[in-house]
């Protein structure tokens, strides 16, 4: 994969336009994180570039080719996507579920080759799941389960992985564990990662490139230092904040936040009540 470009993208659910006139290029070999308020179109954007949803106008180009010109399997060999909190079918073991990642590489009846088994084994090792490989996924903790999904995406052997809020429902330690794992995948295996995160500080800490969305439009994009600013937080989230540089990573973090329009919001509520 050499380039991944999004041109004049417009996406809609029925009459409701979610994304308008969006132009972007995803940096290859980097970790890109998308941030923005609820309902800004982050998930829709990820689904559209992951070929789950179709665009109304414009297109997504993988190496100058419209992704909808590729077959489902061809596309899945180049890009893996994990939706937000997927549900594991009952009774499947981690190994069985991870082996589903091999589908796009298999022909016909889907018999597992020696190579398939080797890669499934590798994916389980990288995600530290080897010892749990025969445990049923529905009996696992949230953090373990999220690692299984990531292992499944790894088994797909793609150069790019998209993740929609991979840290949802996890406690702080598990959140860090998942993000560290993704960082390793990027640094060691050169995997391009694009994810949606809610936590601004985690996004800043683990991303090389940040994209801030609001109402389906890119407000600002760039390195964390370029994106995490008082102005951005004001415009995108309507909050007042103080930004400092974290000592170890030299990345910006947001230390205190206040709602800007609290007074206005209160007045509105009072009106409704009155």
């Amino acid at each position: 994969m050499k380039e991944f470009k999004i041109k004049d993208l417009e996406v809609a659910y029925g009459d409701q336009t979610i994304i308008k006139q969006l132009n972007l290029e995803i940096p290859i070999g980097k970790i890109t994180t998308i941030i923005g308020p609820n309902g800004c179109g982050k998930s829709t954007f990820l689904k559209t570039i992951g070929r789950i949803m179709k665009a109304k106008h414009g297109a997504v180009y993988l190496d100058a080719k419209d992704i909808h010109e590729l077959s489902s399997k061809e596309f899945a060999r180049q890009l893996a996507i994990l939706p937000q909190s997927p549900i594991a079918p009952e009774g499947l073991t981690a190994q069985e579920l991870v082996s589903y990642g091999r589908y796009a590489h298999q022909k016909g009846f889907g018999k597992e080759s020696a190579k398939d088994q080797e890669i499934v084994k590798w994916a389980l090792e990288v995600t530290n799941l080897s010892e749990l490989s025969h445990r049923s996924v529905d009996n696992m903790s949230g953090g373990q389960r999220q690692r299984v999904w990531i292992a499944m995406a790894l088994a797909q052997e793609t150069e790019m992985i998209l993740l929609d809020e991979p840290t949802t429902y996890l406690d702080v330690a598990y959140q860090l564990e998942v993000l560290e794992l993704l960082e390793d995948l990027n640094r060691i295996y050169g995997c391009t990662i694009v994810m949606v995160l809610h936590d601004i500080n985690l996004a800043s800490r683990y991303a090389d490139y940040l994209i801030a969305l609001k109402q389906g439009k890119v407000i600002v994009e760039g390195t964390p230092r370029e994106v995490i600013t008082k102005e951005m937080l004001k415009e995108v989230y309507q909050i007042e904040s103080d930004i400092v540089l974290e000592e170890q990573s030299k990345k910006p973090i947001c230390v205190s936040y206040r709602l800007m329009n609290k007074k206005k919001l209160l007045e509105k509520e009072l009106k409704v009540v009155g």
Partner: protein
Amino acid sequence: MNTPIKKKSHFSLLLLWLFLLIVLFFISINAGYTDIPMKDILRILGGGGSTNENLVVFEFRLPRIIISILVGIGFSLSGCVLQGITRNPLADPGLMGINAGAGIVVVIFMTLSGTISLLGVMALPIFSFLGALLTSALLYIISTKKGYGLAPTRLILNGVAIQAGINSMMTIIVLQLDDTQYDFLAIWQAGSIYNSNWKLVLALFPWIVFGMIYLFFKSRELDLLMVGDELASGLGVAVTKEKKGLLFVAVALSAASVTVSGSLHFVGLLGPHLARRIVGARHQILLPFCAITGAILVLAADTIGRTIVAPSVIPAGIIAAILGAPYFIYLMIGNSRTKKEVRK
């Protein structure tokens, strides 16, 4: 859900199930208005029977048994696929109105023409399939949410509504009929192997076999669809295309079965449930297991139904419901118990 039995034993379990079906096959030949002793069955099947024995075995019992088996396979596989692609354990061709759509065509066809030629019999599954296809196309269109694709919950709810609608239409038609035709419909609605002969076997056979072959080649896709549409799409499954194909085949299997058995669709719910509890969710083993389970259920229900009050016949659908209802009650009790344990 209980932990499914380990993979290695799956194959032997499948053989055991098959053996059970074969035993049932012989019992079913043996039992009836005139008993045929076990030791004579092989001789008769081998071609050494008297005219009378041949008549009973080859003209009455054997076609009925084969049809029971085919119908069981058809409903059970159809239910299994529908439950898989809607990811709803309650989905089955009866609940979703597909059988009703096939049924109304069959009922009209049967009531309009008294006796049917071979050509007519061969055409019957085609008509019923068209009826079912029309119903499912309607269901598909009204259950598709713009921009989201097929919504599973809508599919079920709309299916129930369509089924209720068609059933009342059937009642309206029946009110215009005379008594014998009314009797036929009552039996049809209860679900019974009401008509069995070699012509019907011939008419049903290609549908079931084609459906089986198609599904066994799609077992991997069925597995992957169980993780949800979005993830399955990400893994490389052409979700919409595969779902359409699978829905089409599920409809065909069910519609063909309906032509000879009426609404015996309870098997479409019970068969896959039993099979899933025993062998788990992987379709490569689940599908053959489902097929045999369905065959056993219908054959057992029909054999009991036609012997217990012989010479009268209790429709197999009623027997299946009598046998199946306690199982579901047991499931519910079991479920609430395990939930309580988890809470502790």
